[in-house]
């Protein structure tokens, strides 16, 4: 999903993230509640001599925790595109920015490659001076098209421009 807002300094910001309805802390609570329940049951049986219940309970709890961790990790991925007066910043990562790319706003191009085959998804990238970074891989094609249009509009919107001598095409920055 795409959330469009402004950062504290008023710069336009696009947050691209999967839909997620429970935080990792919430998932941890689920694991702990079930852990206490299963631990109590298994310990009770172990106390009465049926200890083989314990390892199965442990294995199952580990599987549950691994499953929830995997899902929560996948859903915690974020891409934040911030459009400043001079630059476009792309931050990608989980929980905190793990990769940060900065492009000069005057030169950045929004590239939407439509697939040659209908089964393949479209690809969206920001490109500048031979350097490109893909964004929105987790979106649907419709969302990617919408994002591309909104990014182009936001980047082209009135604001500080690069000096004319650095701008050979006369301002055609987005395709």
């Amino acid at each position, binding site marked *: *999903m795409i959330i469009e807002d402004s950062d504290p300094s008023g710069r336009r910001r696009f947050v691209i993230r999967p*839909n*997620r*309805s*429970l935080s990792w802390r*919430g*998932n941890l609570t*689920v694991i702990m509640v*079930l852990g206490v*329940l*299963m631990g109590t*049951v*298994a310990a009770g*049986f172990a106390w*009465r*001599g*049926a200890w*083989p*219940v*314990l*390892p*199965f*309970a442990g*294995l*199952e709890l580990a*599987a*549950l925790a691994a*499953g*929830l961790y*995997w*899902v*929560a990790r996948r*859903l915690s991925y974020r891409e934040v595109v911030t459009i400043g007066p001079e630059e476009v910043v792309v931050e990608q990562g989980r929980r905190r920015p793990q990769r940060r790319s900065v492009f000069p706003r005057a030169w950045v191009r929004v590239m939407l490659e439509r697939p040659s085959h*209908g*089964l393949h*998804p479209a690809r969206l990238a920001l490109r500048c001076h031979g350097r490109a970074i893909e964004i929105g891989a987790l979106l*649907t*094609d*419709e*969302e990617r098209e919408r994002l591309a249009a909104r990014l182009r509009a936001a980047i082209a919107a009135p604001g500080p421009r690069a000096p004319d001598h650095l701008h050979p095409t006369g301002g055609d920055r987005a395709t």
Partner: protein
Amino acid sequence: MSTATTTHEAHHHDEPPRGLKRWLFTTNHKDIGTLYLIFSLVMLFVGGIMALVIRAELWEPGIQYVDPQFFNAMTTMHGLIMVFGAIMPAFVGLANWLIPMMIGAPDMALPRMNNWSFWILPFAGAMLLSTLFMEGGAPAAGWTMYPPLVLQTGEAFPFLIFSVHLLGLSSIMGAINIIATILNMRAPGMTLMKMPLFVWTWLITAYLLIAVMPVLAGAVTMLLTDKYFGTSFFDAAGGGDPVMFQHIFWFFGHPEVYIMILPAFGVISQIIPTFARKPLFGYSSMVYATASIAFLSFIVWAHHMFTVGMPLAGELFFMYATMLIAVPTGVKVFNWVATMWRGAMTFETPMLFAVAFVILFTIGGFSGLMLAIAPADFQYHDSYFVVAHFHYVLVTGALFAIFAAVYYWLPKWTGHMYDERLGKWHFWLSVISVNVLYFPQHFLGLAGMPRRYADYAIQFTEWNQVSTIGAFAFGLSQLLFVYVIWKCVRGGQKATAQVWEGAKGLEWTVPSPAPYHTFAEAPEVK
């Protein structure tokens, strides 16, 4: 119940892959749901044929068609297959098809694990069935696998244990997936208390599964080590306790009963409001009642074993705790009836099965209350009254809810309306024959006929014959069910997106048949 703000059209790239690979390697929740449902239908017939062998043998006193050992193998395999092969997979199939669509998720949270959890099932089921051809015959100690009797099983024993492990593993993976999906992948605005009741009941069921499956795994592993590795968990001669197995088994087994009935409650809570054209009465109380039933299911297990010689305090505790379950269950029945009260009701096949569920499941609930009375249970224990009770709960309860669910959502799955006339024929044949089949078993049990015997005293003949006639009629009626499904898959009147005039919820906002991918973009729920 939630409503969506957008109607979702079919997406691009919506053509499913073709051929066998689609089904082998699929991670699509709809494909996997279909696989589960087909598997459970096949197993329903396999287990059903075993039931007919049992009923044919009981047509008259004496030994007619099968020897007592094979008869006991049939009762054992029938129970295991119906519980683990038919009812549970059917509800997991419904969960796969419906939960992502109901909460606005594109798929299950762990799609590859979803594929695994299904494909374990046919192997486990085949392994269990293969024991019929092994030296010493199939397991014949009852689906409860009580030692020391079960330890007398021949070569089939380790295969029985391994297949139970695999069936349990499949259930655990399914439960983890369902919990992860419901908690993490709800659409924006879909708060927990806006979730459809079917989703709520499955969330609670998944918790129950997670909590009790290690207990079953531990129990059957101890049986294995007792037989092959010289341990004495359940062998009194070695310091063990055979009654301990019953405690462990029923600590799993009673919640297992609710694992099979809570999703049925969810199905009925979806269907009745649709055909009464009213919102579900007391949504919150339904959620709390489901949670209460799940909690109580952990503290009533010993009502299955009142006759083992428990202390009086134990008998009293388990008796009262069991009776307490009638309170939240009564809340549910009241709410279903209150939903229908002064509703603009119509009686299409799903509604007929839902109404029959409410009435007949309540009969099963009342006979359960009779069994909960410890001093009375000493009379009823291991009699045909118990058989009648749990078949009213699991056949006219769980299975009827599955029938209702299939008729209700079949147009959404196939894009075609089923043949309503044949659906009604299926309903009336089923509801009449099922009562002819099971109601006389109450009389037989109260008159003293024990369960799990190939022979019986002559005074039980007439009601056994009535029951057997009902069994064959019920079994044959299900061929009509298969025909209705087959006919609907092949074609028929085109179904609209909403299908039913009173249907509410996200799954009714997508076209019929539901596109291969739905809600790739999360809907906004108001």
